C-alpha cells in the first residue's frame, strides 16, 4: 500500500491554476523522483501536498488517512517532511539550533540523539561547526543543514525540492551520495530535481510532469532511456 497518495490535485496560487489533476503514489521504502521543466508546477505540488497551499480540488492521504484539511505543521507532526526549495534555513540560528528545530514535533523528540548522530555521520562537515550561524554557511553546507534538519524530524516521508539547485557539480555529487545512503536505510523519499540524469539514476520510480499533469510515469530505469524525457528538456 502506498504511504502517500496524491489524488487528482488541482492547485495554484493567486488565482492562477497551475496543476490540473495530478495523481501520484509513493511506495514505502522507495525513492520516487518528480521531474519536469521549469514552471511546470513541481514546487506548487509539493507545497500543496504539505498544506502550504490549499488545493482547488483533490485530496492528499498519508498512511491511509485523509490529511487534506490539516495545517502544514500538523502534517509535519504526522511525519510528512519537506526540505523546501531554496533551503529556507533559520539563518539567524546556529546549525545545532536548526537541527533542534527540525526535531520540534513530539514524535521526533524521543529519537533526538540518535537522529543527531545520524545527521553528523551523514554530513561530518556539520559536526565541526555546530555553533556557526546557518546564514554564514556556503550553499552546499546550507543544503546539508536543510536535509539534516529534515531528517531530524523523524520523517515517514521525506520530500526534497531541488536538492542540487545552485550547487557546484562536486557538491551536488556529495548530496546525491548522501541520498543513496539514506535510501539504503529504507526511508521513503520524493525527490524533485532538475539534474534529471542523476535523479533518474538513483531513483526507483519516476513521474514526469508537463502542462500541469503527469505526462509520463514508470520505473526510473526505463524512463532514463526514454527519449521523450530528453525531448521535454532540450527540445530536440
Amino acid at each position, binding site marked *: 500500500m502506498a504511504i502517500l497518495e496524491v489524488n487528482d490535485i488541482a492547485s495554484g496560487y493567486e488565482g492562477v491554476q497551475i496543476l490540473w489533476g495530478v495523481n501520484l503514489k509513493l511506495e514505502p521504502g522507495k525513492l520516487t523522483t518528480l521531474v519536469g521543466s521549469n*514552471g511546470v508546477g513541481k514546487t506548487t505540488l509539493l507545497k500543496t501536498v504539505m498544506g502550504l497551499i490549499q488545493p482547488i480540488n483533490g485530496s492528499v492521504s498519508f498512511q491511509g488517512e485523509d490529511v487534506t484539511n490539516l495545517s502544514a505543521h500538523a502534517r509535519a507532526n504526522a511525519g510528512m517532511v519537506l526540505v523546501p526549495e531554496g533551503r529556507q534555513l533559520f539563518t539567524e540560528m546556529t546549525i545545532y539550533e536548526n537541527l533542534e528545530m527540525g526535531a520540534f514535533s513530539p514524535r521526533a523528540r524521543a529519537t533526538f540523539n540518535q537522529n543527531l548522530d545520524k545527521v553528523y555521520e551523514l554530513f561530518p562537515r556539520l559536526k565541526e561547526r555546530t555553533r556557526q550561524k546557518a546564514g554564514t554557511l556556503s550553499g552546499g553546507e546550507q543544503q546539508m543543514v536543510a536535509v539534516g534538519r529534515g531528517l531530524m524530524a523523524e520523517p515517514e516521508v521525506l520530500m526534497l525540492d531541488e536538492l542540487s539547485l*545552485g550547487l557546484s557539480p562536486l557538491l551536488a555529487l556529495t548530496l546525491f551520495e548522501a541520498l543513496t545512503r539514506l535510501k539504503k536505510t529504507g526511508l521513503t523519499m520524493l525527490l524533485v530535481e532538475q539534474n534529471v540524469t542523476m535523479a533518474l539514476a538513483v531513483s526507483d520510480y519516476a513521474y514526469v510532469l508537463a502542462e500541469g499533469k503527469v505526462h509520463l510515469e514508470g520505473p526510473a530505469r526505463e524512463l532514463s532511456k526514454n527519449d521523450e524525457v530528453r525531448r521535454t528538456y532540450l527540445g530536440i
Partner: protein
Amino acid sequence: MILQVHDVTKRFGGLQALSDVTFDLHTGEILGLIGPNGAGKTTLFNVINGVYAPEHGRVSFRGEDITGLPSYDVARLGLARTHQVVRPLHELTVRENVMVGACYGREKHSLKEAKRLADGSLDKVDLLDRADQPSGSLNVSQKKRLELARALAARPYLLLLDEVLAGLNPSEIASMMDTVRAIREDGISILMIEHVMQAIMSISDRILVLDYGTLIATGLPEEVANNPQVIEAYLGDPKMTAQLLAE
C-alpha cells in the same frame, strides 16, 4: 550593434552571480538566453536595464554607455522589459497598465495619446476586449500578454523578455511565438530568456548559454543544442552519474 555587454561581473554578498559576461546583440536580432535555474539569467537582465549596477564591466545601448544608469533612465532610452513573475499593477485596469508604459517610455505621450497607443498594443497581443477590466482579474497567460503590451507601448528599440512562455499551454505558446515574431517584424530587437526549449530554439537567431554566471556557449541554435557542455549543464554530468552509481 544595438547592445554591447562587456565583461560584466555582479556579486551578491559572497556569491558570484555573473562573471565576465561579454556579448553583442545585433539590431533586429532575436537572441535567446538559456541556462539552468540559478545560472544568473535574470540577474543579467537586471544589470542591463539598470536595476543593479555591476561591480565591473560595461553595458552600452545604441552606442551610449548606460552602465549604472537608474532603470527609469534606461527605460526612457528605449529599452523595455517584461518580468519572469508577472507584475501587473493590480488595481489599475488593463488599459491603464499599458498607458503607464506609453507615458513613461521612449516617447513622452500625453494621456490621450497614450490611450490610443495602449489600445494599439493591446490589439497586437489580443487583449483589447479586456481593456477596462482590473488587471488583477486576468489569468496567467493574459497577464503575460499584458506585460508584453506594456513593454511594447513604450515603443522600445530593444525588448528584454523574461520567460514569456512559462506557464502557458501549447496553443498559447504558439500564439505568443507569433506575437514575438511580429514584434521583430516591426523592427524591435529582442533578447529573451526561455526554458521552453523547442520554442526558443526555433525562434532565436542565436543562443547564449549561461551556467553558474558564466557564458559557456554562444552560437546558432543547433550548434548549442549539440554542445556537450550545454547538455551537461542541463541534464547533469554523465560521468559524475556513473561515478555515483559505481559506489
